[in-house]
């Protein structure tokens, strides 16, 4: 029994430093998602646009095509919240990269949680709610407490919509509606009614994450639009960088001159 007491004491003593140094990849269940991740380009596509071009393009309905064309015209308008001009520019001709930087535009409200870019993403996992926070602004609340989606007639659309999650076969499955209308990766479009289902799959070693996306909307899509993103876990000791962008800084609006090729 003396040995049992010593073992118990050792367990208590050992527990404190172990808890203090918990590695996210050593966690189990949904908690394995906890921590810091960064999106990767596993195909060597060169950039995320090139990566998206390897996805199966969305099959839009005529209504979906019309909605996307209207949305693209609006996005291409010369004024509006912070927008990035994606058009090709001739060498030597200066142009403004972002016309209204740091605005409440595409990065606001957790949009990068729906479509992560090269910035880090961070998960904090609680039994009632999972936080999905892209580094460059906003965050998503993923409710795990069994609540239902709100009535969309009483919901103000947001860049990340309303998300509820559940575990299925060891994977986190997140159901989202209520997102503001906008472009979807690989030629898709979305409205407030469009349903997004994400499946978060962490590799057995806890170092790799795949998010599988499935967009469904019979008004917009001829069939569900599916693709996936891949992420690596950031090294131990990583932390969420603060994305600092001061719209009053004239340097934010400086023009860029493409160099000669």
């Amino acid at each position, binding site marked *: *029994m003396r040995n049992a007491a010593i073992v118990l004491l050792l367990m208590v003593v050992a527990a404190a430093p172990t808890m203090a140094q918990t590695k996210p990849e050593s966690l189990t269940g949904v908690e394995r998602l*906890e921590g810091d991740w960064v999106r990767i380009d596993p195909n060597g596509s060169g950039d995320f646009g090139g990566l998206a071009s390897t996805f199966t393009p969305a099959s839009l309905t005529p209504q979906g095509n019309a909605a996307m064309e209207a949305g693209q015209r609006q996005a291409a308008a010369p004024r509006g919240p912070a927008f990035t001009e994606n058009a090709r520019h001739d060498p030597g001709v200066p142009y403004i990269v972002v016309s209204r930087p740091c605005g409440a535009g595409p990065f*606001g409200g957790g949009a990068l949680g729906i479509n992560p870019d090269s910035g880090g993403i961070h998960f904090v996992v609680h039994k009632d709610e999972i936080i999905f926070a892209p580094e460059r602004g906003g*965050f998503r609340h993923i409710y795990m407490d069994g609540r239902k989606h709100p009535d969309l007639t009483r919901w103000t659309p947001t860049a990340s919509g309303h998300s509820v999650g559940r575990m299925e076969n060891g994977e986190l499955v997140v159901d989202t509606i209520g997102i503001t209308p906008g472009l979807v990766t690989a030629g898709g479009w979305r409205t407030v009614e469009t349903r997004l289902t994400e499946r978060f799959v962490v590799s057995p070693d806890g170092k790799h994450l795949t998010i599988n996306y499935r967009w469904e909307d019979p008004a917009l899509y001829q069939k569900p639009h599916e693709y996936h993103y891949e992420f690596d876990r950031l090294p131990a000791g990583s932390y969420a960088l603060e994305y600092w962008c001061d719209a009053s800084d004239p340097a934010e609006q400086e023009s860029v001159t493409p160099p000669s090729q």
Partner: protein
Amino acid sequence: MTILHRIVLIASALVITGAATAAQTGQPSPRDISGFWALFSDGKKVPPAKLLPRVTKAMLDLHARQDVHAIRWCNPIGLPMIMDSAAIDIRQGPTAIFMAPESSLVPRYVYLNRKHVSADIYDPSTSGDSVASWEGDTLVVDTIGFHPTHGVTSIPGGGFRTDKTHLVERYRLLQNGEVLSVQFTWTDPTVFSAPHTYEFRYRRLPATYEPVSTWPCDPYDQTRAEFLGDPAPFRAEKR
């Protein structure tokens, strides 16, 4: 039965009973501060700060003007203002705690599994680098690494944060988990003549609360810009 037998049995029973009771009753664990929290006007107890003679009214006024600039241009606000918000979502995970007020796009992280990042590589920020540990049922959060000018720098009760500021927060659940007490203690050898301590008490909102998903802060809203003004226009930082 020896004394050792009894110690082992009692200790084991306490551990098992404690876990089972918490799980069965649904009572909030005293070591989980997660929830939606609201700060009302009767939840603040803030004495005046004791400032060093070198802290002049002109310095305090400059920081106040810079605060307006940060709000006007929708910059990250950071500490202390991030904790002085109407509703805050706090989520405690296994390795970090996330704190996000409804009024800001930029949240705050408190790390439970590491020490401070080396100052050699840490990029100073509006909320600094926060690490925490439990002392009994009190969560003690230690923060350094503040940016001296970014965000809203003024501190309730007087003074402002600088790159030499150190903040210690003590979080405790009160009244069966319905109230969250946070005691803030600021020290800074360039601002305060004595540690500046005050307490906020947040009330727990219903678990079904739906936070407003970030306010649309638009720095290009001309009407808003004219209303707020910009008493401290942009000045490039010295590098």
